[in-house]
């Protein structure tokens, strides 16, 4: 329904004069209204949103891989149930976001193919490996913590379906961070070896987590127009600062140290001064040269290819059922 209607509205738009439409569109956004699938929207807005929401959805799906890696090796049955529930949530979050992106006239298969071909990206963080159980704690605490920081403001984003997906996701996300912190707490208060593992996981995940907010505002290419359109609410640096300010006291509580010599409270700005991550590394990881890029895409490709017969079988089954029902009706009519 959306696809057809959207096409019609857009053609009308070009005839009616794009400049006026764009001004009216911007006025609605400034007035804090939501844009819905059937509304006229600038083509660039639509494309930018498909890129953002697609990347977001891909991140949820690819994000299942580093954690799924530990489901069978969780230390207790309870931890295993919890991790399984979390990974299940991520699949659901991917689904909400793909469905929301589809309201913009792109198909799910298109998005999947663009992920597999490397044309679309996913969050750089998931190209780092999870080497031991402490990493599962660090991922929940830091990675989900950073994701929440990013997602909470997006609940107020201008595109209705995206905003509603974010509201649902944020509601479910809080348990993810808490279970991670809970693992870290257990380990930080455990044996010396467990403590060491917790510290090591923090050391390895700290800077990659800071990278999750994207490049520094000085270098971010998509920011200005996206903020005007309210598909981005805060700048990358703002969110990174908030994340550091929230996380440092949590690390202190755990008795772990953040791996940054320059970390210091700055009374004047009311926040911490901290070292920037290595942006060279970030761009390398984005380009495909991170420790796990190939492995992640390969896993997705394998799942897609190996699942093809199953998707086909479900379609064949549905067709057969429909045919049987159809035949049944025909027979009754005769």
């Amino acid at each position, binding site marked *: 329904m959306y696809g057809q209607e959207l096409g019609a509205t857009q053609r009308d738009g070009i005839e009616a004069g794009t400049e006026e439409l764009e001004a009216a569109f911007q006025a609605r956004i400034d007035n804090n209204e*939501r844009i819905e699938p059937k509304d006229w929207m600038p083509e660039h807005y639509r494309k930018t949103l498909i890129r953002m929401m697609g990347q977001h959805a891909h991140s949820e799906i690819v994000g299942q891989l580093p954690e799924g890696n530990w489901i069978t090796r969780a230390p207790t049955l309870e931890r295993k149930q919890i991790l399984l529930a979390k990974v299940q949530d991520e699949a659901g979050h991917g689904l909400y976001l793909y469905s929301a992106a589809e309201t913009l006239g792109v198909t799910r298969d298109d998005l999947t193919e663009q992920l597999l071909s490397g044309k679309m990206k996913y969050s750089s963080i998931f190209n780092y490996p999870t080497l031991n159980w402490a990493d599962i704690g660090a991922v929940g605490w830091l990675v989900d913590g950073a994701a929440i920081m990013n997602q909470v403001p997006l609940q107020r984003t201008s595109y209705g379906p995206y905003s509603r997906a974010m509201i649902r996701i944020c509601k479910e996300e809080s348990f993810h961070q*808490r279970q991670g912190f*809970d693992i870290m707490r257990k380990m930080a208060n455990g044996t010396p070896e467990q403590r060491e593992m917790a510290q090591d996981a923090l050391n390895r995940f700290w800077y990659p987590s800071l990278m999750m907010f994207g490049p520094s505002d000085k270098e971010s290419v998509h920011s200005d127009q996206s903020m005007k359109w309210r598909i981005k609410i805060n700048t990358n640096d703002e969110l990174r600062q908030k994340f550091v300010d929230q996380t440092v006291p949590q690390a202190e*509580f755990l008795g772990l140290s953040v791996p940054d010599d320059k970390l210091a409270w700055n009374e004047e700005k009311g926040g911490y001064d901290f070292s920037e991550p290595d942006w060279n590394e970030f761009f390398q990881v984005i380009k495909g040269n991170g420790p796990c890029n190939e492995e992640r895409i390969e896993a997705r490709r394998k799942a897609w290819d190996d699942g093809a017969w199953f998707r086909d079988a479900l379609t064949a089954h549905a067709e057969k059922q429909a045919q049987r029902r159809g035949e049944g009706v025909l027979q009754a009519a005769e």
Partner: protein
Amino acid sequence: MSKDWPLWEIFIRGQHGLNHRHVGSLHAPDAEMAMNHARDVYTRRKEGVSIWVVKSVDITASSPSEKGPLFDPAESKTYRHPTFYDIPDEVGHM
């Protein structure tokens, strides 16, 4: 010759940004007239900014007798809720 009109389920978006919510149903011969009727019946006091009409026969609903098997398994999975985890006050909001 009279013919029974199909039943339509009506969904209204109350305000910008919210989901459409089911408000009721009505009979109409086609989608366009269902839309007109929905507008007249369900938005006389400006209750909405958008309407969806869906043929009732196109909705597949779970049966009340399936309630147990469908939803009870979630009951024991309390670890899906943030309150399952004890976060000390001094850690702050999480």
